[in-house]
């Protein structure tokens, strides 16, 4: 190709395809918006569960960024763009708010290294990981250290003692409780855990609901955290970072499944709102299942993907071995995403519905 080889003083440039204008959208901006949308929910978590949440976030972010940088160095790729896209930070924050606020530091470290190095970077880094790294890291710890991963603090108003920043740091980094305080004084089962335990003991929902653990429609404290995450989710919708398809299909499938069983037997199946507002359903619907890399990309596929997660969450919560199920459900559907995408391709303009040319 002879470009610009005629005599003259033409601008010698490499010719680039259109479009030529500025492009406002950027990966780092997308990730920053996600982080911003997480702020209200995270503040609510700190309000109810104390400084441990913040310590976890700081620790997880530091480990994730360091792990990402280390892998890029080993892969001899530029470090700055990888760190600068904020994707590792988002993974770290989602992981940190999913684990208990008292988790020993080395577990956070282990979980993050697993998430970033094995789940994300070994598959090729951002854009190539088939699984949601934060959820994979969470499940890895849950399977390996089930006790530590299910020991939750009681929400502020229910706890006999609230941990100060120093006490939280000592607990996380040295494993030491404040003197004179027992675990029972600060911990409580999560609402989903408590519901499962009580139901297994043969209690009816009506009796279980009398416990001070319950708020208006979900676990006390938890329901408000879910509300604030919902606000963040609406922000993401408004900013067009995500579309409604996955969150709405996931939450409605969960509500419908829970509703059907609640109608059949309200003594052993909690009201649908309990499912939506007690665990990680809202967080999962807006922030986790919507991770674009590991989710479906076609519209119809996203509806199927979200609805399947909703139903899996209900199934695992109701009959499975774990009290909450968002992480498992998301990972299971991550496996199915490419296949779903393949079978849900939209009808291309000018083609007939069955894909055959007119």
């Amino acid at each position: 190709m002879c470009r610009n080889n005629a005599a003259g003083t033409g601008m010698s440039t490499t010719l680039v395809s259109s479009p030529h204008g500025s492009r406002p959208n950027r990966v780092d901006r997308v990730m920053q918006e996600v982080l911003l949308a997480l702020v209200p929910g995270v503040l609510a978590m700190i309000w109810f569960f104390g400084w441990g949440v913040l310590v976890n976030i700081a620790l997880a972010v530091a480990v994730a960024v360091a792990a990402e940088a280390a892998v890029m160095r080993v892969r001899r790729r530029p470090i700055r763009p990888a760190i600068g896209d904020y994707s590792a930070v988002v993974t770290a924050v989602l992981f940190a708010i999913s684990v208990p606020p008292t988790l020993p530091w080395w577990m956070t470290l282990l979980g993050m290294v697993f998430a970033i190095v094995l789940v994300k970077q070994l598959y090729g880094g951002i854009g190539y990981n088939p699984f949601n790294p934060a959820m994979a890291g969470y499940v890895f710890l849950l399977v390996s250290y089930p006790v530590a991963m299910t020991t939750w603090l009681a929400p502020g108003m229910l706890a006999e003692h609230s941990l100060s920043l120093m006490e939280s740091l000592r607990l996380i980094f040295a494993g030491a409780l404040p003197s004179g305080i027992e675990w029972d004084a600060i911990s409580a089962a999560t609402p989903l855990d408590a519901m499962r335990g009580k139901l297994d003991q043969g209690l009816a929902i009506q009796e279980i609901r009398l416990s001070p653990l319950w708020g208006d429609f979900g676990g006390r404290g938890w329901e408000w955290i879910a509300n604030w995450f919902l606000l963040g989710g609406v922000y993401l919708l408004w900013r067009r970072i995500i579309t409604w398809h996955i969150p709405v299909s996931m939450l409605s499938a969960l509500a419908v499944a829970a509703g059907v069983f609640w109608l059949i037997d309200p003594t052993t199946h909690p009201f649908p709102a309990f499912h939506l507002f007690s665990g990680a359903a809202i967080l999962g619907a807006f922030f986790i299942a919507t991770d674009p890399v590991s989710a479906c990309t076609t519209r119809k596929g996203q509806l199927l993907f979200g609805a399947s997660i909703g139903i899996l969450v209900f199934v695992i919560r109701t009959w499975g071995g774990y009290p909450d199920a968002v992480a498992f459900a998301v990972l299971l559907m991550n496996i199915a995403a490419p296949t779903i995408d393949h079978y849900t391709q939209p009808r291309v303009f000018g083609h007939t519905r069955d894909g055959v040319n007119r």
Partner: protein
Amino acid sequence: MAATHSLPSRERLWKFHGGIHVPDEKSLSNTRPVEVMPVPGRLVIPLQQHIGATARPAVKVGEQVLKGQLLAQAEGYVSASIHASSSGTLVAIEPHPVPHPSGLSALCAVIETDGEDTWAELPEPMTHYAQLDASEIRERIRWAGVVGLGGASFPTSVKLNPGPDQRIRTLILNGAECEPYITCDDLLMRERAGDILAGARIMHHLLDGPRILIGIEDNKPEAIDAMRFALAETDMRGYTEIRAIPTLYPSGGEKQLIRILTGEEVPTHAIPARIGVVCQNVGSAAAVADAVLEGRPLISRIVTVTGRAIVEPRNLEVRIGTPVSDLIAHCGGYRERPRKLVSGGPMMGFEIAHPEIPVTKPTNCVLALTETEAPDPGPALACIRCGRCAEVCPAKLLPQQLYWHARAKDLDRVQDYNLFDCIECGCCAQVCPSHIPLVQYYRYAKNEVWAREEEKRKAELARARHEAKQVRLERQERERKARLRQKKESLEAGPARSGSDQDAKKAAIEAAKQRAAAKKAAAAKAEETDDA
């Protein structure tokens, strides 16, 4: 002539999938009237400015040419004639850089103008075209070298000849002008609405009376008003509608505009005529009016010269062949060094490598973008599968899958994902958060597919040739053997029959021997007498 059809629900508009809102930047250039550019000292007129075959030169180097004189004759059905856009001397027909994405050179007629701008003798105006045969009018349009002025530059006369078995129900005039920055159609509609409608009326006649829909994006209220005002003055109101359509890129894409105005989709790999629609740019309509009603060939067009790097952005009426650098100079030159010089709009235009390239029939805009307007997008990041591209794709494709397979050079898969339904509008690349040059990948993949098909075709040809050669060699061998066999057979079978032949030969040899002996004897005798 079936002039009136029942018009379906008035003002009903349809939507196409996706599309994007981009700052339209039209006010940079649409506040001043169109200014006629003076004759440049030198015109460089490419012999191919259209889709189809290159026109054949009809003049000789050194000849004096007049304005409007035929320089090159359309060659073949899909082709367009080229005319001199001013008078002067034809100094060369040689390769010269032309406006093309490749930046390559092509054959151009170079005219040193004489400044007189003398018209050649033009054909008679066809004022009473309604009484004339359609083919006669089409021949005039073809002679005038009218092509689609919206950018594709397909010969207009061909589009106006859909064939006897294709009934055209709707003629669409495209005044959408959805590309940011460009305002040449806007200004044309404001200033020459009557001519556009006159052209539409001619097309209406040629296409045997379809309804006419004129689509204009609603960010051009002055143009809409001017067109409506002009329509009220004509006898076309019964079958013509002017519709303001929502401003959304790429609503000016042919298939998108047809969808918006009629609700119908042009089938993949088909032309609009297939669903009874013909779509023409408003500029082409005005050019048709000039050709038929004035007998004037297409030798100039309106070009928007804009971008924040230009001192005085505006629209110019420019002769075809005027160097782009002259246009920029006429607009006060550069305010700052442009980062990019583009022919066409920012979404689909191509970068100009050489500012000396001439304006051609499809050149609608010369765009000089500053660093702020066209910043370096930075290195492309990995695709995060966010799906924004699929959301905005007007063809309803899955751009990220296309990208994935184009990158892997999986040419079968890109076609499975309908690569050839991509109109290269650039919406996907515009919204991509990873700043991946998606359109470039698609163009690359299309070229690879074409190259592969060409190779396949050549291989097929070579194979056919080889087979033909084998067959020929075998046949020759067979024939040779047959000849030998025949000879052998005839030798074995016929000594008796050829006996007389051999006797004659023997006799001849004998005679020759005797002659030789006699000569010898005579010579010997002569020697003897000499010696004596």
